[in-house]
């Protein structure tokens, strides 16, 4: 380390008296640092810090927007789901009602058809009965006529004949009914 020989040079040792050259150097040195920092670097770093702040805040804003959107979508979805559920319930209700109505309708229809069929059967039976009665009456009339004619035709000469005629008539009648039965079977 270099030391200065003071006493021999006769300078005054005054540590609180600032030497002018050092003062000037100090001022200049600080001025350089200050101007460099204030003019060149401070704006740069402030700009960057501002940008960073904005970037962070922008990121936050974006995240918030995304979150809001997600919330919106979720709400929409939930609303749709509720609607769908509501709709489904409504449809089910409707279908049930329709089903009940259809069953009732079909029941009524069946009832109606049954009654129709029954009525038709009754009518048929009535018609058959009527035609049968008519044909029977006709046959009976004819038979009665035939019998009467025969009785009249043979005359009432004698009892033997009379009984014979009656027997014959009865035989005919039997045959006729047998023929009718036969025809009935073959048909």
């Amino acid at each position, binding site marked *: 380390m270099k030391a200065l020989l003071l006493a021999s040079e006769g300078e005054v040792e005054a540590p*609180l008296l600032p030497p002018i050259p*050092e003062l000037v*150097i100090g001022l200049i040195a600080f001025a350089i640092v200050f101007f*460099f920092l204030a003019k060149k670097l401070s704006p740069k770093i402030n700009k960057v810090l501002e940008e960073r702040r904005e970037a962070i805040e922008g990121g936050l804003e974006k995240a918030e927007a995304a979150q809001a959107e997600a919330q919106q979508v979720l709400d929409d979805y939930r609303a749709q789901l509720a609607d769908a559920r509501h709709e489904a319930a409504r449809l089910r209700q409707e279908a049930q009602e329709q089903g009940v109505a259809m069953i009732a309708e079909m029941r009524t229809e069946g009832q109606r058809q049954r009654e129709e069929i029954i009525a038709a059967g009754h009518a048929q039976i009535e018609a058959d009965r009527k035609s049968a009665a008519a044909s029977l009456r006709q046959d009976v009339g004819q038979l009665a006529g035939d019998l009467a004619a025969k009785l009249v035709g043979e005359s009432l000469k004698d009892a033997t004949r009379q009984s014979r005629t009656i027997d014959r008539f009865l035989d005919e009648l039997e045959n006729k009914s047998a023929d009718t039965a036969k025809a009935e079977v073959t048909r």
Partner: protein
Amino acid sequence: MSAEQMLAFETDCHIFDGCGFPAPGLHSFLFEPIFSIGGFDFNKPMLLAVLGTFLIIGFFWAAFGRAKVVPGKLQMVGEAGYDFVRRGIVYEALGKKEGEKYVPFMVSLFFFVWIMNLWSIIPVAQFPVTSIIAFPAALALIVYVLWMYLTFKKHGFVGGLKNITGYDKSLGGVLPLAVTLEFFSNVLVRPFTHAVRLFANMFAGHLLILMFTIASWYLLNGIGIAYAGVSFVMTIVMTAFELFIQAVQAYVFVLLATNYVQGALAEHH
């Protein structure tokens, strides 16, 4: 006193060799010029001041020159220092809105003082530039001028004087005395204490380190070796302590400067 006794560091002198302890003193803060141009002597503190200036500029240029939104390591360190002064000192005293324009000045001041202090424990340099009164005085002068300028600009001449002297009618009879005291305290003593506080701390710190360093070497003879060890340990302890003091003094210097600016800008009360 002979020339030999005045040497701050006599390399071949030990205890029991018949030479006295080459105690450090005021002469330890005086340097032979490295070179001279005309009447201008360029000495070691000046060299360190210039080197320190380039060091600060170099560091901040490297850190902020191509500042990015996503910072690199160096930029992060630079930002930490920048933000320490900005938030820790300037915003605290002046608020964000008012303080913003003083940030570059205070950051420069802090790092300038700190680096000039730090030379004290940098090997080879090993001399705090701020222990030469001229450097703290120059900085205190700048702060003083700034303070005065802001005071009179903000309050006008009479208002400025009132602001400086703490003029307050409610003091009544004590008013002349209070004003006189305040005037001396603020206008005359304040820049002096501002500079001397930093200077004396660095001066004393350097003397302490120097004394233990020289003692470690001087005692290195015979039984003195045991004491030399103690002295050497003390050198290391003091160096670590100085590292702390350097930062604290830089902080205090800037804190006071900020408070002066705040006082200048404060409303009358």
